[in-house]
């Protein structure tokens, strides 16, 4: 059934793909290129932890692999694994505070970049892990965290399950 949340997820996915293709290369800060797909996926994983499907990160990761020029399958694997872990972790540590959501997103963003770096190095890049961490993982992690923090309220506004909103309202009353 095509619920408003589902429509938002589909439209949101298309939007972040367009942003990644046509905006991300031009707003790089030094070597850091933002990854809108990662930010969106992690925000969804935290906003909808109980109903998060691993299809979304797999598809978006695969899109990134094909348009980004990196090893095909690397981001699909990384994003699927980390975002699923994030959603499951958030179910256990969620205390209705914004801090916990942001902490889980930040930790997940770092894990995504680190795992992707491992993929790049294992698949034959000649750089050292220290260099990779200093010049790619950390800058990209910081950039992605900032974007995911910006994306979170938007995703929470449109993708949060109605049941959760009702429960929150009831709790507030």
């Amino acid at each position, binding site marked *: 059934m095509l619920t408003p949340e589902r429509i938002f997820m589909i439209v949101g996915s298309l939007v972040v793909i367009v942003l990644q293709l046509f905006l991300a290369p031009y707003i790089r800060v030094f070597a850091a*290129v933002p990854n809108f797909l990662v930010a969106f996926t992690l925000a969804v994983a935290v906003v909808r932890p109980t109903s998060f499907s691993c299809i979304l990160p797999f598809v978006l990761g695969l899109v990134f692999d094909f348009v980004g020029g990196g090893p095909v399958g690397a981001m699909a694997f990384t994003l699927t694994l980390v975002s699923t872990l994030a959603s499951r972790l958030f179910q256990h540590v969620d205390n209705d505070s914004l801090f916990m959501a942001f902490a889980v997103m930040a930790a997940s963003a770092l894990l995504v970049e680190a795992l992707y770096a491992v993929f790049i190095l294992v698949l034959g890049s000649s750089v050292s892990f220290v*260099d990779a961490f200093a010049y790619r993982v950390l800058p990209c992690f910081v950039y992605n965290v900032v974007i995911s923090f910006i994306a979170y309220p938007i995703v929470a506004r449109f993708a949060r399950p109605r049941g959760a909103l009702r429960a929150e309202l009831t709790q507030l009353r």
Partner: protein
Amino acid sequence: MPFNMQQSSGFSLTRNVLLAALLVISLALAAVYGNEGADGPLHSAQSGIMGATGQVASVGAGVGAATETAGGALSDATANPTTLSGLREQNEELRQLLAEAEEYRQEVDRLRGLLDMKQVSGVTGVVAHVVGRSTNAWDQSITIDMGTAEGVVSGMTVMGSTGVLGQVSRAAEHTSTVRLLTDPDSGAAVMVQSSRANGIVRGSLNGLLYLEDVAEDQLPAVGDVIVTSGLGGSYERGLIVGSVVSVGDATTGVGDIIINPNDSAEMLEEVIVVQKAPNALPSAAPANGASSAASASDASAQTGQDDSQVTLDGQVTSTDVAAVEQQRDESWRYEQPAAEDEVAEEGLEEAYDEGYVEEPVEG
């Protein structure tokens, strides 16, 4: 079901199985990608998709320009010059036209720079527009709007208006991906122009170019010009890469040799894909450096090339293009016999001794 939006209290077995399946598929794709060659199905699909997105980007730019033009025409048709608001609109239009004219003027300047470079270095190639840049921080590449249909093939050298930028890594029908020299996995066989010492220029994650594999007794000095040596056949010979800006500790030979590239892809909108370079700058006998795998494979690759002209000139001491042009005017041209493997292998001086090359004729 592409997106599972249903509320559930936990993760069912089905979800876990699906997760495991997707992870296995991802790993399998990565393994296949890592093991297949550049012509493999995944590489080909990736190249096609990157090319298509590059074309979309260029079409998008065209649509944007057309929209602006249509908007301007519509504004022209509806403007009322007798009113103040009409004059303001006209003023805005003129400003827009001025901006467009300035855009064209800058493009003409850039193209003129490329044309000058072509004339100076004597390269033959096609001018391409940069239509896309990498969306991945790990991949230092650009997408250009020329492909196999225009004669661009994988491995061709790509230049900006003043120096080497990189190499075509993938070529689709109408687009190509250019791996930049600054990419950590990029490498070019080069030589120091003054000493003829061979080496390898490599990119790095920090964005600098490093000169490696240079013999300790032939370390370059700050300011030395670095040109491609043509060894290995991956890059055309005699094209300027940049100049040395740091040699570390020159007395001990310890430290990194850092190259300042002559050209950067950051702001470039047009490039030249070199289809043939007349070896504008000479390569003499290879020095005893360059012991890497690249130069190990170079000898065999060299033997098949340089069957045309070899252009000799003096030592170019500046990266300035005008200086290079002046040097070329004073140059000597030689006709080199074809299929003389040793000529390329051992260098021109030895070739003269052996009599493989004709005596130089001025002009």
